[in-house]
C-alpha cells in the first residue's frame, strides 16, 4: 500500500481551493474509505461503486468552490455528495438493467472486498459501543445513512410515525456522541 498523505482539515481545504495536486491525494487518502463505505453500502455492485466513487471525487474536485467551511465540516459536504450520487445511480434505469446482468458475480467480489474494511487502531473498542446502540436506533440510522432512504421512506418501511423516526435518529446520534466523547 502506498504511503498515505494526511493533512489537517483547514490546510486541506486551503490546498483544495488552490487546486494543488497534493490536496486531491490527501483528500483521497483521508476520506476514500469512509466515502466508499457509504457508496458501496448503497450501490452494492463493486464496479458501479467504484465508478460512483470516481464520479464523487471528480465532483468534489470540480465544485469545491461551492463548499463553505462556515456551513459545516468538509466530510459532511462530501458525504452528502457521495450519498446523492450513489442514490442517483441506483435509481437510474441504466443501473437497474446492469444489475440484472451482473448481480451474482459482483456480490462475490463485494464480499471479498468487504474484508478490506479499514483497520483503525484509534477506533478499537468503538465497534463494541456501536453494537450497544439499541437495534431500532441502529436500523434507522443505517437505513438513512447507508441504504439511501429519506427519513420519510424509513418511516414507511418501518411503519413508524415520522416524529418517532426523527426522535430515534436523534437518540441514536446522541448515544454515539456519548461513546465517542
Amino acid at each position, binding site marked *: *500500500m*502506498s504511503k498515505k498523505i494526511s493533512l489537517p482539515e483547514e490546510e486541506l481545504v486551503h490546498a483544495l481551493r488552490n*487546486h494543488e*495536486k497534493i490536496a*486531491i*491525494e490527501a483528500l*483521497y*487518502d483521508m476520506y*476514500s*474509505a*469512509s*466515502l*466508499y*463505505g*457509504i457508496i*458501496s*453500502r448503497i450501490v452494492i455492485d463493486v464496479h458501479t*461503486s*467504484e465508478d460512483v*466513487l*470516481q464520479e464523487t*471525487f*471528480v465532483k468534489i*474536485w*470540480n465544485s469545491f468552490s461551492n463548499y463553505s467551511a*462556515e*456551513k*459545516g*465540516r468538509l*466530510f*459532511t459536504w462530501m*458525504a*452528502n455528495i457521495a*450519498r*446523492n450520487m450513489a442514490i442517483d445511480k441506483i435509481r437510474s434505469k441504466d443501473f437497474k438493467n446492469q444489475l440484472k446482468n451482473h448481480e451474482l458475480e459482483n456480490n462475490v467480489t463485494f464480499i471479498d*472486498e*468487504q474484508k*478490506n*474494511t*479499514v483497520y*483503525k487502531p484509534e*477506533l478499537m473498542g*468503538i*465497534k463494541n459501543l*456501536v453494537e450497544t446502540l439499541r437495534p431500532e436506533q441502529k436500523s434507522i*440510522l443505517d437505513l*438513512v*445513512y*447507508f441504504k439511501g432512504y*429519506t*427519513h420519510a421512506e424509513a418511516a414507511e418501511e418501518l411503519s413508524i410515525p415520522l416524529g418517532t423516526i*426523527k*426522535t430515534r*435518529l*436523534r437518540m441514536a*446520534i446522541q448515544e*454515539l*456522541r456519548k461513546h*465517542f466523547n
Partner: protein
Amino acid sequence: MKDVQSYMESGILELYVLGDVTPQEKLQVEEMIAAHPVIKVEVDAIEHVIERYALEHAVEPSEKQRNRILNSTVTYLGDDSNFKPAKSQREDNIVYMPAPKPTNFYKYAFAASLALLAAATWALYNTRTKLEQSNLQIIALTEQNQKFANRVNLKDEELNVFRDPSFKMVKLKGTPKAPNAGVTVAWNPVNKKVMIDMTDLNLPENDQNHQYQLWAMVGGKPVGLGVFDKTAADSTDMKIMQPVELAQGFAVTLEPRGGSTNPTMDEMVVIKML
C-alpha cells in the same frame, strides 16, 4: 433560547447533517447556524459523530482505484498531458470478452424438429391407413376363402347325395295356397339323413316372426324335422334336417318362429306323399 433548545431537539439538525432536508429546510438551518452559535456547536458535534460513524464503517476501495481516481480528477483540470486518461487504466485491467453472437441455431433446430414431426406423423398416418386396408382385405379374403372351402365341402356332399343310390330326391309340390312353390328334400332311408336342397327352394320369403318347418309323415302322424328360413340371399347349401327312417311323405308349413309341435295345416305350402 427555549425556541433554540426545542429546535435542536426536533431532530432537524441530524437530518441536515445526513443531507435529508429540503432546500428550504437547508436554508433555514443554515440561517439558524449563522444566528445561534449554540446551534453551530450542536451541528458540529453531530457532524463529528457521523464522520466517526462513517469512518468506523469505512470500506477500503481496491488499490487500483487510487491511481484511476486521482488521474481522472487531474485530467479534469485540463492538465492531462502528464497523465493518462482514466479510461486507459481500466482497459489495462479489463479483458474485453466479445459477447457471444446471437445464434439462430435453436430457432432453426426447433423449426426442423417440427417439420420432421409433421412428416413422421403424416407417414405414420399413411402407413396405418394402408395397414387397416390390408387387414380388411385379409379378412375379406379369409371370409371368401372360407366360403369357398365351405362351398367345396357342400358340393362334395351334394355330389355324394346325388351319387349315393340310396338317396331319394323327393320333390315337394306347391299346395293350392302356394301353387308355384317347390322344395326338394333328399332323404336316405338307409342312414335316415334328411336334407333340404336350398338351391332349389321355391318359397316366398318368411318374415321375422315366422319360419318354415319340415314335417315327415310317420305312421300317419306328422313329425317335425326342424325349421329353416327362406331369405332373399340365394343359398347353395344342403341344409341337414333331423333324421327320419320311415316316412310316408314330407310337407312344409309356415309356423311361428322356432316351430310348432303340430303343423298348422292352413299354412302348408308344399307336400309330397310317397
